[in-house]
């Protein structure tokens, strides 16, 4: 405890300082009575979309209310312990799953949303993705050239720059394996300032080095007079005709799992849904917004991700150091988006809980894998979903209590990519010197030669809940587009049928991104929120 106290004293906490200076922050779990609040704009969600929009709208002179279902935690609370961070900062205690439970979804639920817990990887939206949006979905205004200044603006705002420190040993295996096998690899750009290279980004940055929404746009919005409601679940927009009239919310209890009896109503000129893919479509579904062509919640994408674990001769200590600093796009760049599914290769942080729940099997076999943790090296392959007719993504629906459920079907098109990706990762790991490789599937057998691994993977019966699939990127579900019959919002993010309802988050995307999505959300939301500010002024 002494060290925790010492650390909280030695590192400034901009959130606690801001609250002490008089920011308008209301923890709804403590509300003694119902509340009605008025503002120019209410934004549901405080992640990459909501945070970016809030700063732009406050800077433009509007009064803004931010609604966040999760808690407000900050650097003094971030003690780098998985057992504390996952229940506090993630959707469903980091155990959110697709409807059939085949894909585990890591998604933030706290002030700052995913940006508070992500691994800081920052990529501009790949040109192939933007081209597909233009060609296949009629998207205009979001070309590489048109977005370039917005990428530049957000990169400057969030200190996004190439990581110049040597990669940790886990990431070094990816670059070494890629070099050995002759495929492209690159250094990841990160949104950090004065990073201590600790490796605990996923549990909230304890040093405020990560330039998440929590330490950048949200403090600026609050300093500019915005109001932040935490532990507040946006239940539904109340609307009639072509306009939203109110946002109805429920206060959550201190555990964040159950609503209390307290209601909060927010009335505004403009209503912005930035609750993230899954959250935003669910909010609109609960609001029963007009959806004559049943587009809402459709085409939700996950970058379904397969995992390969190796044991190396050298120590890896994969919990230590920037979690992601090397990537390979070889199997995206050499795969036309409309062909067999391509994948991005990265390395994840290797912490005890995340590793233990990902490694298949139990008993002594599992314990032996865990005992090799310091020598464990892990690669992940993120499948680029949504570019092929056989990859329509998932559908967000509502459970009996109104919470979201994501139905995401797996099919041969995806399994083909999963199989190729497992082989590729094993090839890289052996090329980099792995003693054995465990493609994460079935009971998690380890193989000591690439020939054995290839043969085993070729024979794998890839199927749900046998092959481990994870996701840390949720995209789509309220797609933007020019045609109301095939999209939910227009090219400005304005709902096709409700003229003062706007979607500003990753649910806008017509496909997956094919890269970690945070910078795509920042740039596109910055552009659309700037348009919204101009529209509200005129």
């Amino acid at each position, binding site marked *: 405890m*002494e*060290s*925790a*106290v*010492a*650390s909280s*004293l*030695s*590192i400034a906490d901009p959130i606690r300082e801001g609250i002490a200076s008089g920011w308008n922050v209301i923890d709804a779990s403590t509300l003694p009575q119902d509340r009605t609040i008025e503002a120019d704009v209410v934004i549901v969600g405080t992640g990459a979309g909501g945070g970016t929009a809030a700063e732009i709208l406050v800077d433009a002179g509007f009064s803004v209310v931010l609604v966040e279902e999760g808690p407000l935690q900050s650097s003094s609370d971030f*003690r*780098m*312990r*998985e*057992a504390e961070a*996952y*229940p506090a900062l993630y959707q*469903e*205690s980091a*155990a959110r799953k697709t409807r*059939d*439970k*085949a894909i585990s979804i890591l998604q933030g639920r706290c002030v700052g949303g995913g940006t508070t817990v992500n691994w800081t990887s920052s990529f501009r939206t790949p040109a192939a993705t933007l081209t597909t949006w233009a060609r296949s979905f009629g998207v205009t205004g979001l070309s590489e050239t048109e977005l370039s200044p917005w990428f530049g603006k957000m990169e400057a705002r969030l200190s996004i720059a190439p990581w110049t420190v040597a990669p940790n040993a886990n990431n070094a295996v990816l670059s070494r394996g890629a070099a050995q096998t002759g495929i492209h690899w690159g250094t990841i750009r990160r949104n950090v300032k004065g990073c*201590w290279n*600790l490796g*605990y980004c996923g549990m909230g940055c*304890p*040093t405020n080095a990560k330039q998440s929404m929590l330490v950048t746009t949200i403090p600026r919005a609050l300093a500019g007079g915005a109001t932040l409601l935490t532990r507040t679940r946006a239940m539904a927009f109340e609307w009639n005709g072509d306009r939203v009239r109110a946002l109805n919310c429920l206060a959550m209890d201190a*555990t*964040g*799992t*159950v609503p209390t009896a307290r209601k909060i109503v927010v009335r505004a000129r403009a209503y912005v849904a930035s609750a993230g893919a899954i959250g935003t479509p669910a909010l609109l579904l609960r609001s029963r917004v007009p959806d004559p062509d049943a587009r809402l919640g459709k085409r939700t994408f996950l970058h379904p991700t397969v995992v390969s674990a190796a044991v190396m001769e050298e120590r890896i200590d994969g*919990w*230590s150091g920037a979690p992601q600093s090397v990537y390979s796009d070889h199997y995206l760049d050499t795969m036309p988006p409309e062909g067999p599914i391509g994948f991005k290769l990265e390395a994840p942080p290797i912490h*005890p*809980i995340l*590793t*233990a*729940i990902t490694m298949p099997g*139990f*008993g*002594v*076999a*599992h*314990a*032996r894998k*865990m*005992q090799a*943790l*310091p020598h464990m090296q892990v690669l992940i392959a993120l499948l680029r979903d949504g570019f092929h007719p056989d990859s329509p993504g998932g559908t967000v629906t509502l*459970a*009996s*209590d109104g*919470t979201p459920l994501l139905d995401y079907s797996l099919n041969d098109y995806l399994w083909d990519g999963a199989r190729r990706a497992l082989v590729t990762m094993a090839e890289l790991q052996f090329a980099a010197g792995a003693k054995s490789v465990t493609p994460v599937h079935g*009971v998690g057998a380890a193989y000591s030669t690439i020939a054995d691994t290839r043969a085993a993977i070729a024979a794998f019966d890839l199927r*749900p*809940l*046998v092959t481990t699939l994870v996701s840390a990127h949720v995209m789509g579900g309220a797609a933007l587009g020019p045609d109301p019959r095939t999209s939910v919002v227009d090219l400005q993010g304005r709902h096709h049928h409700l003229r003062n309802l706007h979607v500003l988050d990753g649910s806008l995307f017509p496909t997956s991104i094919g890269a970690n999505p945070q910078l795509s959300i920042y740039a596109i939301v910055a552009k659309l929120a700037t348009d919204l500010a101009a529209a509200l002024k005129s």
Partner: protein
Amino acid sequence: MHRDSPLRNVNLSRRAFIFAGVAGATMLAASRWLTPSAAPRKDSLRVLDADGEAIVAALVPVMLAGALPAAPDARRSAIVDTVDGVDRALLGLPPLARDELGQLFVLLALAPTRWALAHTTSSWNDASASDIEAFLQRLRDSRIGLLRAAYDALHQLIFASWYGNPRAWAAIGYGGPPRIG
């Protein structure tokens, strides 16, 4: 279920179909007339009742074979720690997810469904390690996706509980988070 348990509201007749595939409708219809034990749970547990506690306590030594400390006292308290951690995890889950798991524990507690799922007539307290190992393998290798999901849920709850505990770290060569003060 325990009177105050958040799992008490599990409506078996309405929701049991989710995990019912293997047990069959007759078995479940019968199980509705059976009352699981209402033995008092440990005071520190917030969600698990005595049955749930017994089930998790029985699964932990098998799931964590080779991982728990060897000395009897340390082993016993590590099992208690892990059950407590599972209970805390259940408390933090959204109500629907908690209900689903509660329903799984109910089915595992009731004799007819326990027999159907675990092939054991003995209580969880008396089940042998090999019985439990066979039960876990049967869930894991089931052709029924929902039973594999049940295995996954138990796997996740128990491994997350143990490996989130600093007591587990020395054996896996993890020194814990760095000091930054």
